[in-house]
């Protein structure tokens, strides 16, 4: 299926160890995530969010490397160099939106990458439309509901078209229609065959609807190597 079309793109963790205080919170010998959709499953504290942070270059690595297509993305102190981090987009479990309008919030990543205003508009507008945010475009981001904020945070990441898209518990607060829209978008992107999408989620039904490979985590370790559940 979509994942089978995966050609070179591959996000890999090699011997990654992350320590908080005295405690090792993540220890991954080898995790390869090919183009397509992956869901990280596991109880709270299993290390799902930490894998995402490591892949995004936002947490110090005590050991090991994060690689994208064989080149190093992150291998030491956070934050990783900015040009490496720009190949990745991450949506946090509990996103923070900078003050400003919804449109400004969604454009932030593009602005940081010095994308011109014309192009920003042509990339942002369809996404706002599709996520049902268009009527909120000039609303202050501080005045949004939980679900709206979640969608804005998703739009912030999706608009970047990065090679790697990391989503932490993204379906919380989303109504069914928005959830379906998100699933459609993600499946389309995965269909392109060059984007690695990694989702940390409690929602096992989500993995099924996304036709994703599932990696179970517990106690900071990866238990299996990407099973696809029917």
């Amino acid at each position: 299926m979509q994942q089978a079309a995966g050609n070179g793109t591959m996000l890999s963790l090699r011997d990654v160890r992350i320590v908080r205080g005295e405690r090792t919170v993540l220890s991954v010998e080898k995790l390869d995530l090919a183009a397509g959709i992956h869901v990280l499953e596991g109880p709270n504290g299993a290390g799902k969010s930490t894998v995402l942070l490591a892949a995004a270059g936002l947490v110090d690595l005590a050991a090991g490397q994060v690689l994208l297509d064989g080149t190093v993305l992150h291998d030491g102190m956070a934050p990783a160099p900015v040009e490496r981090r720009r190949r990745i987009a991450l949506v946090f479990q509990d996103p923070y939106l900078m003050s400003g309008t919804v449109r400004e919030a969604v454009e932030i990543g593009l602005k940081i990458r010095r994308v011109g205003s014309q192009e920003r508009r042509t990339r942002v507008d369809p996404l706002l439309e599709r996520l049902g945010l268009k009527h909120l475009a000039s609303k202050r981001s501080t005045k949004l509901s939980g679900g709206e904020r979640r969608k804005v945070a998703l739009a912030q990441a999706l608009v970047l078209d990065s090679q790697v898209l990391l989503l932490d518990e993204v379906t919380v607060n989303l109504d069914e229609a928005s959830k379906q829209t998100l699933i459609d978008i993600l499946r389309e992107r995965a269909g392109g065959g060059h984007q690695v999408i990694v989702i940390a989620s409690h929602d096992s039904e989500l993995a099924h609807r996304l036709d994703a490979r599932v990696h179970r985590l517990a106690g900071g370790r990866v238990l299996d190597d990407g099973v696809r559940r029917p």
Partner: protein
Amino acid sequence: MILEGLRRAFEMLLSFDPQVWGPVRVSLEVSCVATLLAAVAAIPLGVVIGLSRFAGRRIIVSVLNTMLALPTVLVGLLVYGLISRSGPLGAWDILYTPTAMIIGQTILAMPMICAFTVASVERSDPRIRLSMLSLGAGRIKASVAVALENRAALAAALAAGFGRVFSEVGVAMMLGGNIRGYTRNITTGIAFETGKGEFALGVALGTVLLVVALAVNFAVGYWNYRGGRRQ
């Protein structure tokens, strides 16, 4: 005497007596410029200290907090020694000028603004910086975003710095020299007029001092109240 002083003070204020408004102008100009100069250095420094974790950081923060109580006359003495014509920077020829007062007050305001900035950045939402980094921002841009998201708290830091220099007398007296129409500001004016037994003028100047200090704090307080947002 106080009541009579008050009555005459208000007459002077309302008739735009230059004896009152001259020092007020000097105070506002010098203290505003000093506060802004201090802010240009102290806010970035405070953001960096507030966001980073390095050995010796605690020491720097406690030194900063100690410097909040830096006696104004000590700063005055130090700068005086530097800019006196027989001092190392004597060639600048700036003793007893508003520039000298600005230098002294900038030094006074910096630890205040810096310490407040550190405190507000430490208390600020850690997600701000992480969000910016995850969207591809460099460290500097992420830090600037932290500052901007905390702008109400930083305004309070500025107000604290301004309050410190606007109401101080030591630096203004030692480096400004209380020259009429040139470096006499509100506080040295009050000291001088009391020395002359002119209570009315002292009261008029004191009233302006209070009103400005209150207005600044009220404005900042209002902004912080309005900006008190939670995500």
